[in-house]
C-alpha cells in the first residue's frame, strides 16, 4: 500500500508536503513552472516581492561554505506591480498552489500588496525575517507589535491562507509567532536564515559586499528543528518547517518536531541535478512511512512530542 502523502495546510490541499522555499529560485516564472511540474512538489513559494523594485546588493552576494551557504542577495525583485503581471500569466499554467511571498516594510504596504496580488495567488507568505535588508524583514519581524500590525493589515484584504515566516534571529520566536497568530495568521513558516558573516583570510576582508548575510543550508537544520519543536508546543496553527533540509531524513525530523509541511531551499544548489531533489526526498519519506507501518504522512506530525 502506498502511504498517502497529501496534506491539508491552512485550507490548501497539497499533493505532497514538500514545498519550494521562497527566494531560492529568484523571480523567474519559467523556473517556478519547471519546478511545479515535478510531481513531488506540493506548493511553490515565490521570491519575496517588495513594494518598490530592488536591484539587490552588489556581488559577492553568496558563497558556498561547504557546511552551508551564506547570502546577502538583498531581496532583488521587480516590485509587486511588475511581478503581478507575470504571476497572472504563470498561475494559469501551474497545477499546484502558488504562494506569493511579500516583504512589506509597514502596514500600508502590506495592505496594498495583498489587495493587488490576491487574485493571482493561492496564499501569502509574509516575509518578516530577512536578516540583511534595511527597513524590511527582520527590522520589522523582531518587534511583536509591528508583526501584529502588519499581519492584521494583510489579513484584512485576503481570505486566502496567510503564512508568517519567522526569523531565528530573535530572543523569542514563540512571542513573535504568537503575535502573528493573534493578528490572524493561519500558519507559521520557520525558519529564515541566520544572520552571519564570513571573512576571506587572504583578502582580509568580509566576503559579502553587504558584510552581513544569512546562513542557510546544512548548518542551520538543528536550529530550525528546535524552533519548530518550540512552536508546536505552544501554538495551535500548522507549522511549515524550513532550514537545511537536504534529504528525507531531514524532512522527517522536521515533521516529527511538528511541521505539517516542509520547504527546501539551499539544497537545490547542491548538484547539477538539483531539481531532482524533491523526488528523492518524497521517495525516502514514503519508504520511511512504509517501514514504520504508517498509512499517511499526517500521522507523523509532531510525533516526537508525545510521551
Amino acid at each position: 500500500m502506498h502511504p498517502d502523502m497529501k496534506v491539508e495546510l491552512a485550507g490548501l490541499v497539497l499533493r505532497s508536503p514538500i514545498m519550494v522555499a521562497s527566494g531560492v529560485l529568484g523571480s523567474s516564472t519559467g523556473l517556478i513552472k519547471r519546478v511545479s511540474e515535478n510531481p513531488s512538489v506540493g506548493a511553490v513559494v515565490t521570491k519575496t516581492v517588495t513594494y518598490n523594485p530592488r536591484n539587490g546588493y552588489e556581488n559577492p552576494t553568496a558563497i558556498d561554505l561547504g557546511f552551508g551557504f551564506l547570502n546577502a542577495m538583498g531581496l532583488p525583485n521587480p516590485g509587486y506591480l511588475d511581478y503581478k503581471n507575470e504571476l497572472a500569466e504563470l498561475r494559469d499554467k501551474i497545477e499546484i498552489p502558488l504562494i506569493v511571498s511579500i516583504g512589506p516594510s509597514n502596514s500600508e504596504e502590506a495592505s496594498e500588496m495583498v489587495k493587488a496580488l490576491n487574485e493571482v495567488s493561492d496564499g501569502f507568505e509574509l516575509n518578516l525575517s530577512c536578516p540583511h535588508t534595511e527597513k524590511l524583514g527582520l527590522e520589522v519581524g523582531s518587534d511583536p507589535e509591528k508583526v501584529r500590525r502588519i499581519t492584521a493589515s494583510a489579513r484584512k484584504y485576503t481570505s486566502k491562507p496567510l503564512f508568517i515566516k519567522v526569523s531565528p534571529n530573535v530572543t523569542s520566536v514563540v512571542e513573535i509567532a504568537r503575535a502573528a497568530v493573534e493578528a490572524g495568521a493561519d500558519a507559521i513558516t520557520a525558519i529564515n536564515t541566520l544572520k552571519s558573516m564570513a571573512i576571506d583570510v587572504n583578502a582580509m576582508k568580509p566576503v559579502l559586499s553587504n558584510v552581513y548575510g544569512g546562513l542557510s543550508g546544512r548548518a542551520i537544520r538543528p536550529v530550525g528543528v528546535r524552533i519548530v519543536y518550540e512552536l508546536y508546543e505552544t501554538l495551535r496553527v500548522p507549522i511549515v518547517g524550513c532550514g537545511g533540509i537536504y534529504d528525507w531524513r531531514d524532512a522527517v525530523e522536521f515533521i516529527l518536531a511538528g511541521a505539517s509541511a516542509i520547504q527546501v531551499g539551499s539544497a537545490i544548489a547542491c548538484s547539477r541535478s538539483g531539481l531532482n531533489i524533491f523526488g528523492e526526498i518524497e521517495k525516502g519519506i514514503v519508504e520511511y512511512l512504509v517501514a514504520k507501518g504508517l498509512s499517511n504522512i499526517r500521522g507523523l506530525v509532531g510525533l516526537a512530542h508525545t510521551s
Partner: protein
Amino acid sequence: MSSKTHYYVEAEVVSNIIETSRVNTLVLKLGQHMEVKPGQFLMVWRPGDGEIPITPSLTNGETICLTIERVGLTSSRLASLKAGERVFLRGPYGNGFNLEYPGKYLLVGGGTGAASLTPAYLKLVEKGVQTLFLVGGRNRDNLVYVNKLRELNANIRIATDDGSVGFHGTLPEFFKKIIAESFFENVLTIGPEKMMVKIAEECHRNGIRCQVSLVRIVKCGIGFCGSCVLDPVGLRVCVDGPVFNAEEILGTDFGAYMRDEAGRRVEVTL
C-alpha cells in the same frame, strides 16, 4: 562540487596585456591549482570593486588568463589591474563545452568571445580535431586575441563590419559564406547574443550541431538565487549552462529577453 574549495583562491597579476581600447587580458598566477574545463567560468572578486563571471581565455592549472571588456565598474577596475595586484577566484562553475561530438569544429568568436573560446580550441587541437576559427569585430582595432591565436597556430579567418581587415561584413554574414564553402559538423560560439542567435538559426537550418555560451546576470553562480535564468524554460545559466545546445534554447528568450538585476524582463540589446 567536491573538488572545489569553499573559499576564494588568491591569484596575482603577472602582466596586463592591452588587446583593444576596451579589452585587456590579465595573466594570473594562481595560489593554488585550479582545473577549469573549456567553457566553464570563474567568479572574479576584488574587495570593494565587486565580483563578476569570466570565462578564462587560457588555463593550465597554475596560470590563468582572463580577457575582460570594460563595460561597467567591476570589469573596468579588473581590466586596469597592474602586475603584483591580486584578485580572488571562486569556481569553476557551469558545464563547459562538450567536445566529444565527432566531426570538424567551427569556432565563432565575437568581441571577447574569441578569447573565451581559446581553451576549447586548444583542447580540440590536443585531440587532433580539425578546426577553423572565425573572429569578428567592428574594425581592425576591435579584434581581440588574434595575435595570441596566431601564436597558437590557429587556422583563423577574420570579419570586420567596416572591412578594414578580412571579410567586409558581420560575423553571421561571414559564417553563412564559410559554411556554404565547406561543411562543419560542429559550431561553438561566444559573443554578443544577437550575433549568436543568428549563428544558431543558421546552424539549425543547415543541420549543424551548435553550442552557444550564454550571458545572464550571474550573482550566486551556484544555482540557487535564480538571477541568471533563461525563460520561459527556466534554465539557469550558471549551472545548467553557460553552454547550451542551441536546439535546446532556440525559440526561448535567447536573443530576445533577459532579466535585469531586479529580475525585470528586459530586451537583449547586444
